[in-house]
């Protein structure tokens, strides 16, 4: 193959041919409700409406309505054009070019240009911004991002450039075939430099804030409510149906459910344990959506960890003895699925791993667990084993730790103590390795298994088990540069399922009460990314 044909082939492979952008897709014959408002509950005040500062889930949901990034997601989580109409990369995925639409404008009438993205991305990694999400710039492998965050390079050295108003080029320090998929993350959204320079920290206040998304922030009473209203300057305002979106802060989920029942809310979370009842009583309202998150337990593989769990056989035994079907079907009961591997099944770029113990019956797992523990010298005929399970204060975590502890005790004779700690104290203990077994929960930042599997990297700051395997490290590094890393990702999961540094327990599901008048909720978007502009409300 000549160099030119190779280039052409690569170009064909990596250029996105423009699909129609998403917006509310109201079918002919549907009768829209007069009141096109959507009111939903958030658990707690969101961190900020600033795309480069926001760090929580509910904040990101709000930012996705207020600002539009280069790429949005459709109802199935596939990338669709946002501000960018097309994108392509060079052959080795180290340089990405985005073409921006020419009809995108900010809510003050200024055009949205490539310079707004350059400003935003530099702002993200600038130590002066001190964004808690600056690491996303590193994750994007933008040239010099790490050096800039460390204060060793100038912000202007960041690998991003506006070639002209409508062409944005990103230069990466490592090949990243799925770079474009990160563009729907809030921290990559554009920022209006002139507004931020005029108002400083207060630029996100209603009245000051200028946005380029389908909505503008019109009211924000912290700890109580925030209201966003349809932006008439949004390029696709014509197809945006929902006029007003209100997020109400309601701490107590039972109180939120009562208010949902009283018609004050269009969406709220289902309190623990109530899903089966609500699903039966309100089948068209109670929904459960699988999501890309995994609940797991860490072993402490540091030198100070229990000697027993340094033995692979003990870790396997403890994992096998957990009956995940009982946990999801009898304890959680809200659509969660059993986890035998870390990355949730159904993620992009992942072949379903064939881990042996998943195919066994629970009786087989239990029998094998007893054998393994005996081989390791523990159990009824060996040394007695005592483990503490560390978790943060929450009924759900306590309930699960109790059930797991009982399974270990009944099947293996392992004594457990429950160690409950307040959130920050828990994080501190877990990070410092002051535990035997600790709870963990991890959600995807983007739809690729690397967002999970990177936790097994020896140097990862999130590797709470302190697992280390040089083969896995090498495979993880290799996977980063591959366009199709499905095979290597599968192999990593298979190694981890044997060495068992963590025990995957279940994959999350979000259980909601959703007003059945609200249409087109993206139930198939595994990242649970929704855009109010894609919803509409039908008449009762």
């Amino acid at each position, binding site marked *: 193959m000549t160099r030119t044909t190779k280039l052409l082939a690569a170009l064909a492979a990596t250029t996105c041919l423009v699909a129609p952008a998403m917006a509310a897709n109201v079918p002919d014959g549907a009768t829209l409700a007069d009141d096109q408002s959507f009111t939903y509950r958030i658990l707690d005040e969101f961190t900020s409406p600033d795309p480069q500062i926001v760090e929580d889930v509910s904040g990101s949901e709000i930012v996705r309505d207020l600002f539009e990034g280069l790429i949005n997601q459709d109802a199935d989580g596939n990338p669709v054009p946002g501000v960018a109409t097309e994108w392509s990369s060079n052959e080795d995925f180290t340089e990405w070019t985005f073409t921006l639409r020419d009809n995108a404008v900010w809510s003050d009438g200024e055009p949205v240009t490539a310079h707004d993205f350059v400003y935003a991305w530099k702002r993200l990694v600038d130590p002066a911004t001190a964004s808690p999400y600056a690491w996303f710039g590193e994750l994007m492998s933008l040239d010099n991002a790490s050096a800039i965050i460390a204060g060793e390079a100038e912000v202007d050295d960041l690998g991003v450039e506006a070639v002209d108003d409508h062409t944005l080029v990103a230069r990466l320090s490592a090949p990243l075939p799925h770079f474009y998929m990160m563009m729907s993350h809030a921290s990559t959204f554009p920022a209006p430099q002139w507004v931020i320079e005029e108002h400083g920290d207060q630029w996100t206040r209603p009245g000051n804030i200028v946005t380029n998304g389908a909505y503008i922030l019109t009211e924000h009473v912290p700890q109580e409510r925030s209201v966003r209203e349809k932006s008439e300057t949004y390029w696709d305002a014509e197809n945006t149906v929902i006029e007003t979106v209100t997020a109400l802060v309601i701490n107590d989920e039972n109180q939120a459910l009562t*208010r949902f029942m009283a018609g004050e809310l269009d969406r709220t979370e289902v309190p623990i344990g109530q899903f089966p009842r609500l699903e039966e009583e309100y089948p068209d309202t109670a929904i459960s959506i699988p999501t890309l998150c995994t609940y797991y337990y860490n072993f402490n593989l540091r030198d100070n960890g229990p000697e027993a769990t340094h033995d692979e056989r003990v870790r396997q035994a403890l994992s096998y003895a957990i009956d995940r079907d009982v946990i999801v079907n009898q304890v959680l009961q809200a659509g969660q699925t059993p986890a035998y591997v870390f990355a949730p099944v159904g993620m992009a770029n992942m072949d379903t791993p064939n881990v042996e113990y998943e195919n066994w019956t629970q009786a087989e797992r239990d029998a094998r667990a007893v054998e393994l523990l005996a081989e390791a010298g523990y159990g009824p005929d060996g040394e007695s084993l005592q483990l503490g399970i560390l978790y943060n204060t929450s009924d759900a975590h306590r309930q699960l730790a109790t059930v797991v502890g009982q399974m270990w005790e009944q099947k293996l004779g392992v004594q457990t103590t429950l160690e409950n700690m307040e959130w920050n104290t828990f*994080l501190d203990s877990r990070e410092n390795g002051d535990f035997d077994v600790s709870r963990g929960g991890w959600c995807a930042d983007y739809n690729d298994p690397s967002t999970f599997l990177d936790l097994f990297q020896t140097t990862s700051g999130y590797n709470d088990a302190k697992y280390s395997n040089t083969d896995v490290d090498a495979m993880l590094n290799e996977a980063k540069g591959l366009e199709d890393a499905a095979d290597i990702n599968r192999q990593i999961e298979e190694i981890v399922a044997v060495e068992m540094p963590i025990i995957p327990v279940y994959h999350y599901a979000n259980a909601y009460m959703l007003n059945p008048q609200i249409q087109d909720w993206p139930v198939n978007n595994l990242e649970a990314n929704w855009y109010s502009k894609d919803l509409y409300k039908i008449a009762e």
Partner: protein
Amino acid sequence: MLKYILKRLGVAIPTMLILIVFSFVLMRLAPGGPFSSERPLPPQVLANVNAKFGLDQPWHIQLWEYMVGILTRFDFGPSFAYTDRSVNDIIAQGFPVTFTYGTWSFILAVLVGCTLGIAAAVRHNSWLDYFAVGTSIGAQVLPNFVMAPILVIVFTLWLGWLPGGGWRGGQWPYVIMPVIALGTSYMASIARITRSSMLEVLGSNFIRTARAKGMPPIRIIVRHALKPALMPLLSYLGPAFVGMVTGSVVIDVYFSTGGIGQLFTNSAFNRDYSVIMGITILLGALTITFNLLVDILYAWIDPRIRY
């Protein structure tokens, strides 16, 4: 009297200083920090965030700069959890909410509580007394975290009369349920205190003398019995008022009012140092002020007390 007030204010200043230093140190001793999360920040990112908020400085410098900020600019610093807002903004938004529902609860509790207490004492061992005692014991044992959801189920879900939560700038339909839920148990305490102290006063010699002189009962109660009977109540009302206007976590959580009660506990869990400090100082200052006010009121009501 003026000398006494000045002396009390003189004591208040070192008290506040000790409170600030003590809370500052306790807070820093708590494990974790404002930027801890399930997903710990990479060390360099954490260093930048700490530097922005001055958390990379030694404790004594942080404390000194904090004090200088308060004393010279009345600036209680930025919130670490909500970085686009200052503690001043946060308190300015949350305190009026709790102050409003707290004050109304106080008024409700005092009016209803005193009336019940007095009526029960005057008609001692009558059906009115039993009713008042029964009501106040009922109200006392029904905690507000039980009361709040019941109110919402009845008035929002079943009857549809009142919104189930929110504040909306303090419009009256949003204020009613928080006021009832917060005021009830205080009302019960006030009724009990008033009743027992009224009973004691009504049994004393000067009241018997007034009765013997043929003074009309209503005049005896209003002119002679009420003032001494309210003295024990007064020492209860000072701290009760501060407790009510500085908010209740339960009320804020159940009625989503956005008040500072909830903010206080949330900021403690989030290690939002500056918000905890700001609210602690506010609570401290209010407690000191109202205790002083109560003492002054004592002297004004009871001529035997002189400072």
